[in-house]
């Protein structure tokens, strides 16, 4: 069992895909406390998205255990899914539906209905500066606007834990700032955040703790500033990242 402090507990997690020669996630142990913004960092193919997919209940692990707020996804899937929010790397929206139609639909998938759902959607659209575009189809939106709607779709039910997979990839500076500010804001209101990113600077500024993984293994975990100081020759998170994962190009 987990204690109150450890909101997400990962023990001995292994994932090997069929026909793969190596483990995508290899004996991973992690504990994430309530109220943290936790950054899961690693080069391409390190096992970040696989770990996140297991935590969200999208794929099964080969071995190991995962508890979220003391509950196993296997035995209590609907309970866990009620209080987690997921923002995938892809723009997982319907191009032919308008922004408001998309958000109402995803809200209903969490069981929200009626005026309360409409109010939540309208508030988020206002918060993200999208009110005047709410009746436009997603297919006509810019990349940044799509990212913002993609984020809103994952938080309509006000989750206790938010999983984000590269939420700021490929967007303009303004949209990125709006998203990061918003993440800090909801974290201050009590939402625990687990996020993956390739932007080291962004992770260094945003995260209370980070974990660097490579080849599915945990390389380092801790507070960014402490980790940087504890590794000789590292001035920032990017130096640390390169020192831990090497300088070879990855696919």
């Amino acid at each position, binding site marked *: 069992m987990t204690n109150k402090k450890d909101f997400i507990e990962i023990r001995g997690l292994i994932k090997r895909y069929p026909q793969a020669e190596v483990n995508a996630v290899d004996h991973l142990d992690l504990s994430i406390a309530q109220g943290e913004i936790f950054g899961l960092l690693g080069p391409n193919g390190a096992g970040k998205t696989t770990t996140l997919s297991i935590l969200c209940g*999208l794929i099964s*692990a080969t071995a190991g255990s995962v508890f979220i707020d003391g509950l196993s*996804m296997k035995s209590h*899937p*609907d309970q866990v899914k*009620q209080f987690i929010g997921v923002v*995938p*790397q892809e723009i997982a929206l319907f191009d032919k*539906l308008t922004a408001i139609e998309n958000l109402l639909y995803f809200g209903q998938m969490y069981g929200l209905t009626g005026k309360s759902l409409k109010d939540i959607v309208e508030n988020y659209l206002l918060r993200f500066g999208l009110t005047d575009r709410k009746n436009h189809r997603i297919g006509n939106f810019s990349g940044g606007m799509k990212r913002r709607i993609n984020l809103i779709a994952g938080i309509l039910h006000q989750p206790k834990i938010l999983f984000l997979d590269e939420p700021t990839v490929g967007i303009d500076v303004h949209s990125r700032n709006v998203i990061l500010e918003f993440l800090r804001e909801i974290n201050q209101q009590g939402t625990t955040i687990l996020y993956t990113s390739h932007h080291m600077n962004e992770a260094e500024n945003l995260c209370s703790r980070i974990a660097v993984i490579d080849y599915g293994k945990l390389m380092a975990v801790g507070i960014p500033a402490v980790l940087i100081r504890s590794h000789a020759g590292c001035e920032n998170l990017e130096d640390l990242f390169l020192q831990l994962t090497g300088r070879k190009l990855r696919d």
Partner: protein
Amino acid sequence: MWLFLIKYIASTYKETLLLIRDRAGLSMLFIMPTALVLIMTMLQDSTFKVLEEKKLSVLVLNQDADTFGINIVDGLKQSKFFHVIDSLKGKVLAESALREQVAAGNFQIGIMIRPNASQTIRENIKYRMLQQLPEEQSGIFGSDPVSPSQPASIDVFFDPVTKNSFKQAIISALQEYSSMVEAKVLFGVYSRVFEDMLDIKLKKQGVFSRLVNINEQYAATDQHVAIPNSVQHNVPAWAVFAMFFVVIPLAGNLIKERESGVSLRLRTMPGSDLAIIMGKVTAYFMVIILQALLMLVIGIYLLPLLGLPQLDPGHHYLALFVLTATIALAATGYGILVGTMAGTLEQSSIFGSISVVILAAIGGVWVPVFMMSDVMQVVTKLSPLNWSLNGYYDIFLRNAGLMDILPNLTALFLFFVTCVSVSWWVNTHKNQPV
């Protein structure tokens, strides 16, 4: 349960919006079956009419200016199927011209009645009769020598592209007229024998009127009899084909959701995936019901305006609706299954369309089941399109009610349940969380 209901209603509404906004795809779902029904019905109707209304031109060279030749030509002329041509550009036909015209494809059929055909028939009848009479009566036909000879013959030339049905029609007609002429000649010879032997003069009146009437009618269990025609066959056949073609957009929709990450996002949300699947089924179910309604309207109101027979939908409307609804479920279920199992949009498009074409082919949409080989007649029972088509034929042509089509309904519903269950199981169990 409450969450299931919310998810189901939201998914149905979302799918309906997506369908309405995909105008090109939606119009294809309605334009394609309309075009199929119109084109195929008109094509097959004209084929039906070729023999009945458009008389087939037949070149005839009659070299026997006697009973046999005259009666055969008269028979052909009086037939409603043939238009007899015995001269070209004012010139009487010669054998070589007849062969050339048919060989060149100007005419599909040429008939040549050989010289002395009537006389040959008479000689043969006399010879056979003499074999039956006592020896003292051997001089009944005078001193003329009577010897056996080859039967009289008619040569029929066909253009190589002539349809087999046309060949059968002309051969049957010639055989019928020949039999009648043979009977007449036989009667003439026997009359003469009777007159000579018994001194009785036979009257010809009424002798050659038909002794057997063939009453053609369609079997039915009650008063309502729908006449089978191209419309009664083609409207349900192509409507069923089009209804199952909904597999392609439905499977494509599932794959697009998977590729865009939407289906992954949905799987991170609480509640059963079944509600989302049923939402899709409901939206496409409505499309198929509208397709079927459109086909009925076309069959009843539009086809008669184009000079085609009117579709007679029978009078078991409840059975008609229940069958259409069950077909709609079977088609959407199959679409969900194809979309679940296919890995890419290309796979689903190719497999979806080809499998529907194959199921239609073995289901009897193109070739009637009774014309198939014994093996194929067993295989056809595996096609849901066959269960659908037979259900419509039962209602439209055999005046069947709900209980009569229960086996078809059961098979289609089980097909739907199997498809959706397999899809749901695959979606749920492919990736069990820890």
